[in-house]
């Protein structure tokens, strides 16, 4: 084994430039894929985390009559006395925060411009509002007793040219089917760095939202945040009741989950294409080496090395190329991933219905992705060397010895 390694290492060293370029091809493929898989992972995690913290929570407790995609303010479609339920939910150890929210469709207008928006009635004191509170870029966060203040996203503010203290008109259908219209003041402007959210949502204190829509002491849902994503199913099970629907983040984000599956399938194809190109380079390098060293193969065969020994020789060279290439690729790819983990890639308002993408994608490197990639690259390189290795192993010693 030592001799095999020594011979393989020295053989690669014989043609340093060619070996280095082959290694670089493996490294390039690994680095490129590592960056791409990390960007995709970051994008998916970002979108999911965003959607969880801004829209779905880890769990939502909804009334039994809740229908996906339909915003109903009828009392029978709302949770009555939500604080009682909130207290029960908060008693579970996994729960970090539970807070009632009321959603209503509305039209926001100013001067001669108007735009369809969603009102989210929130408890201003809840820690679930952290994403908005942290994202305040102008004005102040709303107070629980504010009767006319609202918060708007920066994209909506830009589109309608709104500033803090501007008065806007909101028109919404109430629980009894009437249309109510009131003047509100923009108390502050926030950004969640998620254009799809910041363009369409208006936050107002829950109490005011209930008054405005005639839904006193009712909420559309209880928004629940847990310590970890994976606790959702267990908590949902614990809270199971015939009176409510409980939707986990996974239930609410089917599109993101499916999109991730689709992206992963696409990545398998991409892996094969990139590593296929890399494999071709490795095959070429080793085929050249076999033809250059035909006479040496003949000598080894003459002194008694069997075909499998000669094959092992070339597989060892491929293994060394793969090791160097994968390590170099992980270093180069890791550096690129680090850069994009810190700085992100600006994508602007990239809208897909149901998915809240941030305006910047941050790469995210997982150990699983790194190990999978290294193993696949290693295997592909070894498979690529099978053809030249077999070519060498099958040479007739007498013909190999007479090769010039």
């Amino acid at each position, binding site marked *: 084994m030592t*001799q095999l390694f*020594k*011979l393989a290492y*020295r*053989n690669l*060293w*014989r043609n340093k430039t060619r070996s280095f370029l082959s290694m670089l091809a493996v490294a390039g493929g690994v680095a490129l894929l590592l960056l791409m898989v990390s960007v995709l992972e970051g994008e998916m995690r970002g979108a999911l985390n965003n959607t969880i913290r801004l829209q779905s929570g880890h769990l939502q407790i909804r009334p039994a009559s809740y229908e996906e995609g339909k915003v109903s303010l009828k009392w029978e479609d709302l949770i009555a006395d939500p604080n009682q339920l909130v207290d029960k939910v908060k008693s579970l150890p996994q729960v970090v925060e539970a807070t009632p929210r009321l959603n209503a469709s509305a039209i926001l207008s100013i001067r001669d411009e108007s735009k369809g928006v969603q009102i989210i009635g929130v408890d201003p004191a809840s820690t679930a509002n952290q994403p908005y509170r942290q994202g305040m870029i102008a004005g102040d966060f709303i107070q629980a007793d504010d009767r006319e203040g609202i918060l708007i996203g920066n994209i909506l503010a830009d589109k309608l040219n709104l500033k803090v203290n501007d008065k806007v008109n909101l028109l919404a259908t109430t629980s009894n089917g009437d249309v109510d219209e009131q003047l509100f003041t923009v108390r502050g402007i926030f950004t969640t760095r998620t254009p799809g959210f910041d363009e369409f949502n208006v936050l107002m204190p829950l109490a005011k939202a209930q008054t405005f829509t005639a839904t006193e002491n009712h909420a559309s849902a209880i928004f629940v945040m847990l310590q970890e994503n994976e606790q959702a199913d267990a908590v949902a099970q614990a809270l199971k009741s015939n009176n409510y629907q409980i939707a986990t983040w996974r239930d609410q984000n089917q599109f993101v989950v499916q999109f991730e599956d689709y992206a992963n399938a696409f990545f398998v194809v991409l892996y094969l294409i990139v590593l296929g190109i890399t494999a071709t380079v490795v095959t070429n390098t080793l085929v050249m080496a076999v033809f250059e060293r035909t*006479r*040496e193969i003949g*000598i*080894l*065969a*003459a*002194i*008694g*090395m*069997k*075909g499998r*020994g000669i094959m092992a020789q070339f597989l060892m060279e491929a293994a060394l190329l793969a090791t160097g290439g994968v390590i170099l690729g992980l270093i180069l790819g890791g550096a690129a991933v680090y850069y994009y983990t810190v700085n992100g890639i600006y994508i602007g308002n990239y809208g897909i219905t149901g998915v809240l993408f941030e305006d910047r994608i941050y790469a995210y490197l997982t150990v699983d992705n790194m190990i999978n990639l290294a193993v696949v690259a290693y295997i592909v390189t070894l498979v690529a060397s099978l053809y030249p290795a077999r070519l060498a192993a099958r040479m*007739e*010693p*007498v013909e190999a*010895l007479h090769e010039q």
Partner: protein
Amino acid sequence: MEVTKIMDATRVYKIGEVETKALRGVNLSIENGEFTALVGPSGSGKTTLLQLIGLLDKPTSGQVFINGKDATNLNRNQRADLRKDAIGFVFQFFALIPTLTAYENVEMPLLLNGTKPADRKRRVNEMLEAVGLADRAHHRPDQLSGGQQQRVAVARALATNPKLILADEPTANLDTENGKQVMDIMQRLNKETGVTFVFATHDPRVIHYANRVVTLEDGLIVKDSKNGKH
């Protein structure tokens, strides 16, 4: 005892539609301890005969025996095993592995037959000593002269203690002095260890070393003289 025996061996090469008869029915028996020269003009079949004896090639018809065992129909791996254990080779070109030192080149057949490290070390040093290259053990082939490389090849051929050494034109690429050195070493080892040498040559300067001269012409043995007698 016969180290090798060739019976009615023919070897026909076919290139496209053209057939070339390199050997046309050769019978040859080599006894243990012989120092035999295969001589004859280019194309007479010397190298082909050596390749058949060395199990590097198979006869088109006829039989090849090594140490009394019929090796004609052995498969690739069986032939490789027999070569490893019973036959050593010295080629016309200085057939060393260029990436290995003289020591490592001599060590290679010992690694292949699984010799223990301590025995390997002793044997390699012994062989390099025997060919006068102990001080060049850690030189690579490109740091050695042609004569030195061929002496390393002789040391390698003898490393596993085979009964038979086959040398194809061992002095063809050497000057007179180096050629003489190589032949002297081969002859000395033949006498000291009793190992059988069969070498193909058309170099008139080295034929006198042989105690048996087998002459080939057009794929046939035309003369076989032992100790100067026909």
